[in-house]
């Protein structure tokens, strides 16, 4: 080849691979379309093959040319609707395109490759489709001579006939490589590509004979001839192809050879394919195989493997009879030394190599490049500004310049990151094929759904997740989805579904692989793990179900009985996990037996720069990647005793109802714990050994006035460092995968974006660190590896999770017993009086100035929201202390009977969750239901309704008894409600206002009693009101019984609860509860009941 241009070759390779990249998806789409072929789609694939062929012809890549030519034939047939793309045909096409891709990726050796098998398969297809005459035409190769020279181009008759049929003209175009292309600064591939846009290239070649030998003069013309078919008229043609008219030869019909040709066979130029020809043979040592359809079995006997050099060199000769091996395609010359590979080559390997080789270039949006240019320009300007400011010592300029540089740097970083972002569709699209092939092999029916193809990831991440994702998808197909029969038996649809989803969330990319297969059985996994010695039996017993499922990630694990080719080598999952972790990502598994499995992968958006939280421990700073950080906690000195508890010998903190194990970073690392002296700012060693080491509060009980005076206590508190702000505990709540814990650190500092730098060999093996970074002050800070720190402190999932699970159970069961939890609003009246009202009755809390209170008609009011809010204090009804005088007054606003009223109270006003065990006798009085102990103080529970009713009886009109007309009997009677509630407090309350509203209420102390009452048929209730937590039979069971019994299923059941969690509501719905009401919300309850009774 004249150019010898690695560049041109490289470009050809890149372009071809690009063309071929989409082919797989298109072919699969074609398969699905079946009869209704989308012509566009087929054209796409056709054009891809065609341009590959064109370039190959030019480059002398004969094997590629032949393969693509055959592919083209088939696609042409499909496009012309003469061939229907069946599954088998598509499979052949897929395989052939795969091979083509391989050939192109290993372009140097491509001419040595053996593609007979593929050619035969392809030819078989075409042959079956075409009528005999046309079959011959395909075989037949015509030689078309260049009018002016000895050059001859060849094409098979079939193509020429087709072209003529389409009304195209056949031209021979003669480009001069030197003048027309090289000097005009064009590039042969560009020429070919532009020609392809307006017609078909049937053949092309470079007339190398013109180059001559070294002894000749340098040629001034090297013809590049192309056999071109196009509908462009002869007079327009030269303009289109950008040639002088004298070099455009219109081959009219008469010049076309009519019949078979006269080209001699050159017997020693054995083609690699079988040669039994009866047809004309060719003189093209290149690749045109005119072998007629041969039985496949005969093939192997015939063909000679292309290992021998002689074949190669023969093949290399250009179609011109001159022997020009010195100028023949260089890449092939080199390749003759390479051994050839089996056609059955390990496709995986070459594909991988190909993948790695080709990912040396990238497509970038031009807009992005423009903005990068802009940013670079701005950076230059700001730098100039900075330098100027520095030399002239202008502080202001320096500051503004550095601000700009700060901003520009961030933008620059982002823009550069974006250039590396590629859509994940690159990876996803391959999976359609993987799933298709694999499910066919295994005889399963599987549909693959892809979501979020546009989600973009950094290039390196995309390259790295390819393998792990493939493994996971294959696992799903192999182990996850059951065979159609099994599925049918289980009542599932025969076709299984695998869902691949990608989306951005919280600064990370999430990838989910979900299947509706058999799920992962924790017991099986754990048994297998014990068997393989991954964990001991005792350890296995300590694991929760989720942990057991996670065992599949343990090294050396595999449940497949035999190692199938597909998966099950026992090296899969843990490699996947470690690969993902290396990328800074995490993987989690969630599975339910019989229902399906869901694998969730989280990956950071970029590898190099991560946002992190800087903390200090010992005398050093460390960084915690934000991806691992959930939240930051600070426990003030005074609360430590309460909030931090011990489970076994591990310290835990209760966070929103969950127990969080605590780890002291300084202990794990074996460094000295320090604290910052609040006055001097010095870092000093902290000698507290016990996390929960605080003087007992009781010792300083303010109520115990005997030993200490107030001032003394306060002073002591302040000077005692243990109570000081500095002795608060700083906790970073981190998570490694699903395992969360709190890391106790000395100090919490800023959050910063840091550049991750790898640690050297000697430190790499050190546990606990995931790299290092350089801080703004030049010092090195180590980046903590949250997962391994947990391991180091032996607080891994296996050992502690059970303990924590136990604790949780205890907590849950205790909350079961202590049902009737409620949220209360605490406030004060007199100095030592603490009172409470149910929080859900509170509309708002306001603070008003005492000067704003007006007295109108003996009633205190305040202007409020455009109206007057009546104000009262507890002393008006109850026997309590008078409200002390203050400038500012807290007012709790309630809404009753549609009106708003305010209750004046003293601070502190606080909300609290407590167990309602109300003492209804001791301190009962008007307006006060009873008392309970909250925060060690006797607290009076205010009865809001009674209170305001006493003050404003006119608001509550007498209600008639609700009358009910029985539709069947026409009798009228009172509405009867059955109320099941075990707490007497609530019973009385609710019964009270139900009866006031005119209902007949029958009470039952628990579900069983209620059921007996209903069953006895003495009373016919219109509505059942039930508590949920009751001893012998709870509300759920009661409802279930009622609804399942035909006699009563029509009755509405309303549940009263202090719990209204999602889970409970679901549970309630499933047993048939009609409505949920919060206890003590009288008005709402009455309204609901009224609705249900109508």
């Amino acid at each position, binding site marked *: 080849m004249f150019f010898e241009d690695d560049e041109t070759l490289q470009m050809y390779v890149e372009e071809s691979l690009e063309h071929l990249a989409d082919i797989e998806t298109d072919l699969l789409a074609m398969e699905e379309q079946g009869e209704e072929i989308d012509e566009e789609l087929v054209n796409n694939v056709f054009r891809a093959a065609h341009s590959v062929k064109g370039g190959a012809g030019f480059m002398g890549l004969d094997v590629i040319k032949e393969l693509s030519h055959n592919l083209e034939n088939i696609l042409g047939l499909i496009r012309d609707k003469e061939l229907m793309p069946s599954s088998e045909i598509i499979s052949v096409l897929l395989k052939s395109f795969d091979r083509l891709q391989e050939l192109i990726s290993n372009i140097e050796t491509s001419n040595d490759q053996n593609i007979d098998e593929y050619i035969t398969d392809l030819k078989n297809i075409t042959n079956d489709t075409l009528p005999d005459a046309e079959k011959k035409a395909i075989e037949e190769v015509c030689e078309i001579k260049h009018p002016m020279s000895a050059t001859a181009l060849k094409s098979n008759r079939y193509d020429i006939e087709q072209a003529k049929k389409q009304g195209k003209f056949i031209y021979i175009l003669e480009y001069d490589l030197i003048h027309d292309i090289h000097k005009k600064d064009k590039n042969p591939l560009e020429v070919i590509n532009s020609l392809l846009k307006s017609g078909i290239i049937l053949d092309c070649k470079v007339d190398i004979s013109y180059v001559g030998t070294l002894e000749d003069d340098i040629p001034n013309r090297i013809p590049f001839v192309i056999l071109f078919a196009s509908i462009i008229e002869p007079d327009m043609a030269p303009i289109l192809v950008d040639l002088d008219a004298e070099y455009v030869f219109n081959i009219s019909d008469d010049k076309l050879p009519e019949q078979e040709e006269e080209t001699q066979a050159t017997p020693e130029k054995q083609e690699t394919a079988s040669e039994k020809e009866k047809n004309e043979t060719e003189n093209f040592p290149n690749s045109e195989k005119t072998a007629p359809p041969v039985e496949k079995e005969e093939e192997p006997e015939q063909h000679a493997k292309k290992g021998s050099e002689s074949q190669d060199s023969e093949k290399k000769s250009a179609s011109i009879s001159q022997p020009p091996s010195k100028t023949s395609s260089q890449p092939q010359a080199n390749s003759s030394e390479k051994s050839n590979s089996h056609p059955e080559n390990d496709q995986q390997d070459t594909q991988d190599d190909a993948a790695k080789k080709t990912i040396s270039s990238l497509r970038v949006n031009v807009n992005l490049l423009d903005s990068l240019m802009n940013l670079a320009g701005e950076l230059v300007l700001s730098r100039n500004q900075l330098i100027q400011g520095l030399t002239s010592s202008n502080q202001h300029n320096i500051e503004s310049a550095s601000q700009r540089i700060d901003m520009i740097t961030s933008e620059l970083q982002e823009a550069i990151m974006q250039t590396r972002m590629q859509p994940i569709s690159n990876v996803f699209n391959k999976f359609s094929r993987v799933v298709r092939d694999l499910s066919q092999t295994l005889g399963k029916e599987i549909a693959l759904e892809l979501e979020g193809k546009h989600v973009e990831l950094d290039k390196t991440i995309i390259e790295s997740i390819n393998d792990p994702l493939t493994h996971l998808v294959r696992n799903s197909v192999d182990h996850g989805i059951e065979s159609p029969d099994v599925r049918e038996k289980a009542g599932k649809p025969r076709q299984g579904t695998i869902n691949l989803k990608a989306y951005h969330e919280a600064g990370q990319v999430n990838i989910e692989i979900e299947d509706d297969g058999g799920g992962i059985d924790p017991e099986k996994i754990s048994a297998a793990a014990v068997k393989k010695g991954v964990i001991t039996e005792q350890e296995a017993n300590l694991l929760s179900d989720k942990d057991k499922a996670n065992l599949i990630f343990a090294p050396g694990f595999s449940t497949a009985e035999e190692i199938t080719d597909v998966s099950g080598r026992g090296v899969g999952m843990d490699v996947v996990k470690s690969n993902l972790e290396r990328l800074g990502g995490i993987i989690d598994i969630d599975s339910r037996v019989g229902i399906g499995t869901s694998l969730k992968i989280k990956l950071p958006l970029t590898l190099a720069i991560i946002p992190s939280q800087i903390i200090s421990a010992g005398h050093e700073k460390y960084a915690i990647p934000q991806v691992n950080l959930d939240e930051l906690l600070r426990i003030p000195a005074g609360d430590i005793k309460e909030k931090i508890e011990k489970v076994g010998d591990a310290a835990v903190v209760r966070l929103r109802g969950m127990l969080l194990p605590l780890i002291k970073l300084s202990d794990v690392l074996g460094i000295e714990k320090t604290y910052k002296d609040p006055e001097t700012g010095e870092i000093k060693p902290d000698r507290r050994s016990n996390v929960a080491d605080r003087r007992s509060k009781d010792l300083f009980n303010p109520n115990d006035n005997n030993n200490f005076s107030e001032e003394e206590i306060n002073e002591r508190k302040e000077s005692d460092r243990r109570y000081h702000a500095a002795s608060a505990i700083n906790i970073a709540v981190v998570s490694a995968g699903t395992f969360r814990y709190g890391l106790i650190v000395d100090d919490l500092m800023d959050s910063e974006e840091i550049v991750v730098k790898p640690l*050297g*060999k*000697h430190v790499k093996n050190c546990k*606990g*660190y995931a790299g290092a970074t*350089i801080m703004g002050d*030049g010092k*090195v800070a180590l980046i903590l590896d949250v997962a391994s720190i947990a391991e180091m402190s032996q607080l891994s999932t296996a050992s502690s999770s059970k303990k924590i699970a136990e604790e949780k159970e205890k907590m849950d069961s205790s909350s079961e017993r202590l049902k009737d939890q409620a949220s209360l609003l605490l406030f004060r009246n007199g100095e030592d009086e603490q009172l409470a009202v149910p929080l859900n009755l509170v509309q708002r809390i306001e603070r008003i100035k005492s000067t704003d209170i007006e007295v109108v008609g003996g009633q205190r009011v305040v202007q409020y929201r455009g109206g007057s809010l009546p104000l009262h204090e507890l002393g008006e009804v109850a026997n309590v202390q008078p409200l002390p005088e203050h400038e500012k007054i807290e007012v709790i606003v309630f809404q009753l009977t549609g009106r708003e009223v305010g209750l004046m109270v003293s601070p502190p006003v606080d909300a609290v969750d407590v167990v309602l065990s109300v003492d209804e006798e001791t301190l009962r009085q008007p307006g006060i239901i009873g008392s309970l102990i909250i925060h060690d103080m006797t607290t009076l529970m205010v009865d809001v309704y009674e209170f305001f009713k006493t003050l404003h009886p006119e608001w509550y009109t007498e209600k008639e008894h609700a009358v009910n007309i029985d539709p069947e009997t026409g009798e009228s009677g009172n509405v009867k409600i059955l109320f099941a509630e075990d707490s007497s407090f609530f019973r009385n309350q609710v019964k009270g206002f139900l009866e006031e509203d005119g209902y007949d209420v029958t009470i039952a102390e628990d579900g069983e009693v209620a059921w007996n009452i209903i069953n006895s048929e003495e009373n016919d209730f219109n509505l059942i009101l039930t508590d949920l937590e009751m001893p012998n039979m709870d509300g759920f069971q009661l409802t279930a019984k009622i609804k399942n019994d035909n006699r009563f299923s029509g009755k509405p059941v309303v549940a009263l609860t202090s719990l209204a969690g999602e889970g409970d509501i679901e549970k309630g719905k499933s047993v048939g509860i009609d409505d949920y009401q919060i206890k003590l919300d009288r008005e709402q309850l009455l309204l609901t009941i009224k609705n249900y009774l109508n």
Partner: protein
Amino acid sequence: MSKYKESEYLELATFYVGEALCGIDILNIQEINKQFDFTTIPQSDDFVKGVLNLRGRIVTILDLGKKLGLSPVKKHKNNRNIIVNFHDEQIGLLVDKISDVIVAKKNELDSPPANLGGIQGSYFENIVKTEKTLIGILDIDTVLTTD
């Protein structure tokens, strides 16, 4: 910039580790500095003193004394870090005191004894004799290879 022909001569930077005088081919040395503000790495091997920020790169600093099996390098104002190139990283070796750069003829090098100054012979590539003393030329690969 050596005026000596590369093939014949060897330039060595010499330094003391404990009592032993050792040398390293200067072609392997990136620089020698006095930066001691390393960041310690808790839980690392005991010969790892910490890491340094060397113009944007993170360099691990090892206590050469400990690494060679001697007692740790005592803190002294004469201490220096010798930053060497090792595969594709840079590693710093903390030594007690540096000495001269000497030139040795390659053909005048001897093979190392089993033990030199308390350091095992396997750490040395060769030794060179000078008028006053013996200098053991360290084999960086052996010294720095992690198990």
